[in-house]
C-alpha cells in the first residue's frame, strides 16, 4: 500500500506554525537543528523559508542511540555539525517521522553535550502511533495512523517523498 502525501504543503504549514509558536512563546532568533538524515532535509527547507540568522545545525545521533549493544554502530555515521554555541538559545529540533521517541531522546542527550539551551521545541513532519517515551511534538506537519507492520519512510533530498510501506 502506498499513500501520496504532498510534503511541500506540510512544510509550508510547519513554517507558519513554527513562526507563531516562537511568537507566542517569545523565542527570539531561534536556532534550528535537524536530525540526520531525513530531519536535515526537512529542516533545510524550513530554515530557508523562515530566513533564520544562524546556520542550520545537523545532528547525528549514532553515538547516542540506546540500541548500540543490540545492533552496533549505525552504518551511515556522518559527523554532527553544530558550530554555534547552544547556551541559552531556543532550539527548534526537526525530524521527519516521530515514532517511538527514542531518536528524540538520543538527540536531546547529544544537544546537552554541546551546551545548555534555554528551550527545545520539537517540529515533526509526520507523527505516527507507537510512542514508547513521553515525548510530544510542538509542531506537527501531519498525524497519520498506521496499521501494525506499516511504517513511514522519507526519501530525498530531491525530491522529498513520503511513503507508507509494509515492513518485512
Amino acid at each position, binding site marked *: 500500500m502506498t499513500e501520496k502525501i504532498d510534503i511541500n504543503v506540510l512544510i509550508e504549514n510547519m513554517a507558519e506554525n513554527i513562526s507563531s509558536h516562537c511568537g507566542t512563546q517569545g523565542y527570539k532568533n531561534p536556532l534550528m537543528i535537524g536530525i540526520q538524515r531525513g530531519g536535515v532535509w526537512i529542516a533545510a527547507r524550513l530554515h530557508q523559508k523562515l530566513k533564520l540568522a544562524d546556520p542550520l545545525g545537523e545532528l547525528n545521533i549514532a553515538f*547516542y542511540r540506546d540500541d548500540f549493544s*543490540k*545492533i*552496533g554502530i549505525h552504518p551511515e*555515521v*556522518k559527523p554532527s555539525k553544530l558550530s554555534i554555541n547552544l547556551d541559552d538559545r531556543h532550539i527548534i529540533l526537526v525530524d521527519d517521522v516521530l*515514532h*517511538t521517541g527514542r531518536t528524540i531522546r538520543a538527540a536531546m542527550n547529544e544537544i546537552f*553535550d554541546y*551546551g545548555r539551551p534555554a528551550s527545545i521545541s520539537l517540529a515533526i513532519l509526520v507523527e505516527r502511533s507507537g510512542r514508547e517515551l513521553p515525548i510530544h511534538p510542538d509542531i506537527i506537519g501531519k498525524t497519520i495512523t498506521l496499521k501494525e507492520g506499516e511504517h513511514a519512510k522519507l526519501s530525498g533530498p530531491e525530491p522529498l517523498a513520503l511513503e507508507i510501506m509494509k515492513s518485512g
Partner: protein
Amino acid sequence: MTGKNIQLDKNGNLKHFLSIEGLSQPLLHTILNYAESFATVDKRPVKKVPLLRGKTIANLFFEPSTRTRTTFELAAKRLSADILNLNISTSATSKGEILSDTLRTLEAMHCDMFVVRHANSGAAHYIASQVAPHISVINAGDGRHEHPTQAMLDMFTIKQHKKDFTKLSVAIVGDILHSRVARSEIHALNVLGTNEVRIIGPHTLIPKEIEKLGVHIYHDMNSGLKDVDVVVMLRLQRERMRGALLPSEDEYFKRYGLTNQKLKHAKKDAIVMHPGPINRGVEIDSDVADGKHSVILQQVSHGIAIRMAIMAMVMGQINRDENKEKKK
C-alpha cells in the same frame, strides 16, 4: 600466528583487532569513516559520547608505553567506558601459566575488552584465542609483528591530507627490521591500493623478506625520497639493537636522518610523519620535526579518534546477530 582469521566473526564483522594483514579494503575504509565522526567529539564542550557506557576495558601493557597507552585510555574514556591500566612485568619465569591466570582473573572482574601490548610477536593473537567469547582483544603492538592501530591512525592522517591512496608514493624510512609499525603500515597501504610503497634504510636494518610485500627498496635518501607524497620516519629503536647493526648514531643521521635538505627531493606538498617518540638529531632533524611539512602532532590527535572507532566497532558486534531488527 594462527592460519584462521580470528579477527572476524562468522559474518565478517570485526571481533578482535589484531593485525592489518587479513583485513579487507572496505573494512579499513569503514574504520577511517567512523574515525572521521569520532574526531569531532574532541572539539566539543563535552568530549564524551555514551556509546560504551558500562563496558570495562583493561589496558594490558606487558611492555612500557606512554603515548599508546594514554591514547587508548583517552579513547575509552571518551566512549564512556571504564578503563583499568595494568602494567604487567614480563620478568616472571612461568609466563604462560601466569598469563592465563591473569586473563581468568580479569574475566572474573567482568572486563569486556583487553588492549594488549607485548614484546613477543603473536601475543595478542594468543590472548584472543584464549579469552571468553564475549571479550574483544585489540593489539597495541606485539614484538616485531604488527601495531595495527598505529597504521590506521597514519592512514587516517594521510587521508586527511592526500585523499586518494591510488595516486600516492609513500616512503617509510629507517629501522624496518625492528619495526612493527612498518609492517602494519605496509599492509595497510597495500590494502588501500597505494600506488607505490618505498622502504629506505641501511642493508642491516631491512629484512630480506620485506620485498615479498611488493615494496621498492632504496638504500639512499636522495633517490628514495624523489617525488614522494608522504614520508614516514621510524624511530631508531636503540633498545632493540643487538650486535653491530649500525656504525654510530651520527653516521646514521648523516645518511638517513631527515633534514630539510633531503626533504627537498620529495614533492613540495609532501607530509612528514613519525609514530613517536622522536629522537631529534638521530632519525629526524628538529627543523623538520617542527617544520611546515610535519603532521606529527596531528597523528597523536588522530590516534584517539581511530582507537575510538576500533573500540566501538569490536564492541558493537556483540549480540548483533541475534538482534537484526531495529526501531526508529
